[in-house]
């Protein structure tokens, strides 16, 4: 019973609110005409210059430019590394492909030339890679050899005149003379 009363009370409050709003509501024609006026201005500069779209495009361009720069820079670095490594290698080990100049190729048509250029570029890259691997292997081999031949600088200090004595042992059946002769360095 009380709930129904409460509901009626809420209904009445909303009705009062609606009446108040109806009194203050703008006229339909005025709002409609304003909407029509806005509609007639179909070309809006805001539409033409969409800020978010421009920002997104600028961001994309920045990303692409930085990617291009980065890839160029990394390629340059790689080339420099190859030059340094191949410069250390012996002249004979540098593969022929690296030295080979493509300028001597016969003249081709535009498309053919492009294809040939890309092929020669790929070849050059492969040769560079091979040269790099070869240089690395040679370096490793040289280092291994150097390590196996290495001698300590203090080895000479450990040498003495009695090294022979230390290297051999007297036999039990040997005579005293033999023993004396054996001890050649002892004062007689």
């Amino acid at each position, binding site marked *: 019973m009380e709930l129904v009363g409460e509901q009626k009370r809420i209904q009445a409050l909303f009705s009062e*609110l*609606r009446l108040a709003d*109806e009194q*203050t509501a703008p006229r339909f024609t005025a709002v409609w005409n304003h*909407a029509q006026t806005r509609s007639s201005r179909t070309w809006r500069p805001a539409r033409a210059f969409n800020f978010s779209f421009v920002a997104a495009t600028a961001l994309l361009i920045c990303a692409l430019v930085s990617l291009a720069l980065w890839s160029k820079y990394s390629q340059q670095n790689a080339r420099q590394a190859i030059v340094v490594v191949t410069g250390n290698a012996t002249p004979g080990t540098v593969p022929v492909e690296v030295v080979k100049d493509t300028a001597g190729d016969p003249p081709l048509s535009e498309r053919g030339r492009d294809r040939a250029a890309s092929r020669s570029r790929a070849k050059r890259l492969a040769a560079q890679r091979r040269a790099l691997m070869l240089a690395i292997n040679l370096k490793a081999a040289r280092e291994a050899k150097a390590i196996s031949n290495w001698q300590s600088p203090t080895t000479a200090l450990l040498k003495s005149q009695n090294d022979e004595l230390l290297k051999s042992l007297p036999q039990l059946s040997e005579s005293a003379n033999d023993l004396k002769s054996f001890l050649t360095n002892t004062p007689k």
Partner: protein
Amino acid sequence: MDNAELKVELEKLHSASFGWALSCCGRDRGEAEEVLQTVYLKILEGKARFRGEANLKTWLFAVIRNTAISEHRRSLLRGLRLTADREPTSEQASLYEAPTESLERSETEAQFQNALKTLPARQREALHLVFYEDLSLREAAEVMRVSIGSARQHYERGKKRLRETLGQTDIAYGISWRAKENPGAV
């Protein structure tokens, strides 16, 4: 339905639409009018098209609600710039409240509006659509784009909460208000 017919129907629903726009805009009259204008503009430009799938009133109210939400989001983004734009020009001033409209709101009405503001948006919407717009719960659910069960839940919770709030503020509905408006009636 052609544009002329639609215009007639929209005119019939205009005051109810304005009330709903007011509710969606937190009782801000300027914003409500702006939203309503945008809705009419959408209809004129064909961005909002009534296909007859639902009741015209529920369709229109759903458009108003969506527009109000998007306008609110936009205003949050634009911040101060939008408030500057919304300053009424001399041309627009006639559309806004006339001096006579700034009539004193009764204390009861003010308290009721405050009580409504304390409700969560969904509950306020459900109550408004049912009590103010005389929609059924099914229609309210359509406007709110929720299931009927969900709309019922919002409605019941909103009613309960509103009762509590009104009880706290102790509104003597129909006595103090009417006594003030018409002392002879009480």
